[in-house]
């Protein structure tokens, strides 16, 4: 490093402690050490001059602004979460209410709700004549197309919710099995249900819906047998398929 490089460097970086720079300062006989001294004094003056007074409490005001902004953000985030939680709660409540409404209007619910006023019918044991059973169905414009099952002890035209129905009780192995036939009330598919002490099947027939049910603990085979028998009576015997002997 020569004197020109040294003095250029000192003009740009007077505080540098670069080894070559310091070595030239210490070795130069052309007054570079004195030049460096003057430059350091100028830098001291410059440092002092640029150190303008800092406003009182600046750091605290900065921290206060940050804390306030952070708190505002937290409140905003909390409000957003609360709004979201309220929306979810409303959606769940509305969904629950809608589901309950749909459930209450379902055929199984209406059938079970119909039963308390008909409990005496379960205790009847005297079989009815085929003619009386057929008349019961005919009254509802749903004439039987096959023989009624044996052991029918009760037949009556009822309203199950808003739907007209034929209510029959069939004793199978000495257990009462309830069958409610709702002509013209169509179901999409067969389904099983269990609710309020009753177990049953909802069966989609060609001209309406058959709900067969018995109190919990009843023999399932008995209920299935009654369901098959009433399906056959209402829709007629199954046609023989091609090739069936």
């Amino acid at each position, binding site marked *: 490093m020569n004197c020109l490089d040294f003095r*250029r460097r000192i*003009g*740009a*970086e*007077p505080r540098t402690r670069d080894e070559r720079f310091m070595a030239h300062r210490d070795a130069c006989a052309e007054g570079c050490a*004195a030049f460096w001294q*003057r430059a350091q*004094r*100028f*830098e001291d*003056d*410059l*440092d*002092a*001059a*640029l*150190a*303008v*007074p*800092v*406003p009182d409490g*600046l*750091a*605290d*005001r*900065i*921290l206060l*602004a*940050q804390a306030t*902004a*952070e708190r505002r953000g937290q409140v905003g985030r909390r409000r957003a979460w609360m709004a979201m939680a309220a929306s979810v709660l409303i959606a769940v409540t509305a969904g629950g209410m809608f589901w309950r409404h749909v459930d209450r209007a379902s055929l199984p619910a209406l059938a079970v709700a119909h039963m308390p006023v008909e409990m005496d019918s379960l205790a009847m044991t005297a079989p009815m004549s085929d003619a009386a059973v057929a008349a019961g169905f005919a009254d509802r414009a749903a004439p039987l197309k096959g023989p009624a099952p044996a052991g029918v002890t009760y037949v009556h035209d009822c309203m199950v919710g808003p739907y007209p129905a034929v209510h029959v009780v069939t004793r199978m192995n000495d257990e009462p099995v309830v069958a409610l036939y709702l002509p013209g009330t169509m179901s999409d598919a067969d389904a099983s249900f269990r609710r309020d002490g009753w177990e049953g099947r909802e069966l989609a027939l060609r001209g309406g819906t058959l709900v067969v049910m018995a109190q919990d603990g009843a023999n399932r085979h008995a209920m299935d047998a009654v369901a098959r028998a009433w399906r056959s009576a209402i829709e007629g015997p199954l046609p023989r398929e091609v090739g069936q002997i």
Partner: protein
Amino acid sequence: MAPVQGNVNPKQRQYEAMVRAHSADLYRFAYWLSRSETIAQDLVQETFLRAWKNLDALRDADMARPWLVTILRREHARLYERKRFDTVELDDTVPEDAAFASPERSGDAAQVREAMRQLPDKYREPLAMQVLGGMSCDEIAEATGQQPGAVMTQLFRARQRLKQMLGGGRASAEGARR
């Protein structure tokens, strides 16, 4: 006010330490950038708010000051963009802040400050970054998007201009000190 203690999370502690360590120098840098105490305070507030939002980006404590200076320069540029049509040109030679009338601005320091105020932006900014920000030529070059050689030239000329503006009176004072 004593630093907040207790259940303060590490991020908050880091932030408070950074504010206490660098707010004064950052304010001075902002002052020499804007030449206004009011704007300097606003700039420092905005800079630290932005720093809080991006604190996770600061990995090295030694880089805090250049990082803050970079944020502040950006804020200053934004401020200039926003206020470009609102500002009224002021005579550079008119001291606008009350602090200029304070006793410590008298004498030698006052002359240096006045000279500094009159330096063109292209010289004043890198000089303030070096003297107040403690930044090297390379760091200034990186922050301003220039070559290190160009920054060295600006710093050299900034000091030459200052010395010229300070004139003979100061030169003779220096001579007396020799």
